[in-house]
């Protein structure tokens, strides 16, 4: 028996599982070989050492811990843990994303809804007012897009101060007006003239919005100046101009920023031998009334065909509105609901009178 072969059998020799012949051969070799004898002694010592190791005992609470694991005590937390941890239901990421997007879109739409639901009628009115806020200095006479038969005269010229004020407000006008119109009621009235002298006319009165008092006074002064100016009148006098020509002339005046006169048509008619109409008289009366009430006329709209005033836009103080209303009643019979305007001092209301025959 050689050394490597004998070393392989040391383990079995120590355990006593070798057959007698192999055991005898191994013992004979070990007696002769010092290295193998030493190796066997070392291995015997190791095995002896391993077999004398004290066994490590389990802790005293081993069975208790095992019982807790096998039969867990009733507790709410354990039930929750059993039911939900780990989460059994898997929610697809796509579903979560779609739901989140839907919620986001819905909330955005919901937030924007009030603006969308803004009454169309009021929205139509709003640009009309802003258009007037952007009026150039001087009296203007320009046709509106509303009807080919109508032309609008804006009997005012704004002072530099007013222009500055208005320019600063220009960008805000629509929003401001929209807000105001959202909250205030629009009252419409129809007035049928009382006397036979005055032919029946329907006047629609629409309080639209408030305007700053300071601006009103300035505008009024300008208006007065322009109304009394005779530049256009003198130029137009002696000419048997047609109405179209008159308005064409007025349009040219607009370009030059000169002031067209609301009373020009009546003057022209007078000069042309045409009697002044009842509507014009009423208009003049209304102008005077508005002036007395510390109001102002913003614009007058004339008919292309007849040259008669068909609408008048003016601003009057809120507290004077009842007086104005009473005076209108004196002029004729009012139709429609009475205006329910709360009288608040230092506020102005804009009135548009639509005159139609």
């Amino acid at each position, binding site marked *: 028996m050689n050394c490597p072969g004998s070393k392989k059998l040391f383990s079995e020799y120590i355990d006593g599982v070798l057959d007698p012949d192999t055991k005898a051969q191994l013992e004979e070799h070990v007696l002769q070989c010092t290295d193998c004898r030493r*190796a066997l002694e*070392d291995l015997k010592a*190791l095995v002896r050492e391993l077999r004398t190791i004290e066994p*490590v005992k*389990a802790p005293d609470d*081993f069975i208790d811990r095992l019982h807790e694991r*096998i039969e867990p005590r009733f507790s709410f937390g354990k039930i929750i843990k059993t039911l939900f941890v780990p989460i059994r239901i898997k929610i697809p990421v796509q579903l979560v994303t779609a739901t989140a997007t839907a919620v986001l879109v819905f909330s955005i739409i919901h937030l924007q809804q009030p603006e969308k639901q803004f009454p169309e009628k009021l929205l139509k009115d709003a640009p009309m007012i802003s258009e007037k806020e952007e009026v150039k200095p001087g009296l203007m006479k320009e046709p509106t897009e509303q009807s080919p038969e109508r032309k609008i005269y804006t009997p005012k010229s704004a002072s530099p101060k007013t222009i500055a004020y208005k320019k600063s407000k220009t960008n805000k006008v629509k929003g401001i007006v929209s807000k105001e119109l959202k909250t205030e009621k629009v009252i419409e009235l129809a007035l049928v003239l009382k006397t036979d002298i005055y032919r029946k006319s329907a006047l629609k009165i629409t309080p639209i919005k408030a305007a700053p008092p300071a601006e009103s006074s300035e505008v009024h002064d300008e208006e007065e100046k322009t109304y009394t100016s005779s530049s256009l009148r003198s130029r137009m006098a002696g000419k048997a101009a047609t109405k179209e020509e008159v308005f064409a002339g007025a349009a040219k005046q607009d370009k030059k920023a000169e002031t067209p006169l609301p009373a020009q048509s009546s003057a022209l008619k007078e000069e042309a031998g045409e009697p002044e109409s009842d509507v014009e008289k009423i208009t003049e009366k209304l102008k005077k009334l508005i002036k007395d009430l510390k109001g102002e006329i913003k614009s007058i709209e004339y008919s292309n065909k007849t040259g008669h005033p068909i609408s008048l836009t003016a601003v009057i103080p809120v507290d004077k509105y009842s007086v104005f209303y009473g005076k209108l009643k004196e002029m004729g019979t009012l139709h429609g609901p009475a205006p329910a305007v709360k009288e608040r001092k230092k506020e102005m209301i804009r009135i548009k009178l639509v005159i139609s025959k």
Partner: protein
Amino acid sequence: MKEKKKTSQNLASKDVELIKAFQSGKKAAFDELILGHKDKVFNLCYWFVGDYQDANDLAQDVFFKAFKALKNFRFESAFSTWIYRIAVNTCKNRLNSFQYRLKKKFVHLNHTAAGSNPGVEIADELSSPEIELGKKERMRLIKAAINSLPSNKKAVVVLRDIEGLSYEEISSVTGFNLGTVKSKLARARQDLREMLKGEI
């Protein structure tokens, strides 16, 4: 030797009774089964992983698995062999697990052998402190050497030299044939001798 065999036979017959009782619905019979085997299983787990707390967790796992599987126990082997088989497989799985390997990488520096095995107390009232210290040092070296062995060699050497199982029992527990058990044990012992040369 004969007495040892008789004792093991008595234990085996007692285990059979307890298992039958458990299978008939007596849950308390399992406690008695645990009492008879918990220390051996715990010791095996300890020498497998070399850490007292890990060994405790592993032994708990082993008996928990046994509790679940005992209803289907078919008496084809002894309960001790069966529970050892569960223990060896559980320990091997643990050693091969990613978590365990990660934990081993980040093991604390103060995680000494004495601190990690409070159960290992060599009770020898006559021994002097020097001898006690020498024994502890030897124990630490042996544990380190065994831990460095591959799991199959480790299983064989622990089952044979520490647990005292026979070659046949080891073969039954590990699933190796008898020749493989012998050769693996011889190589494992040789490796340990080489590692502990001059220390023991």
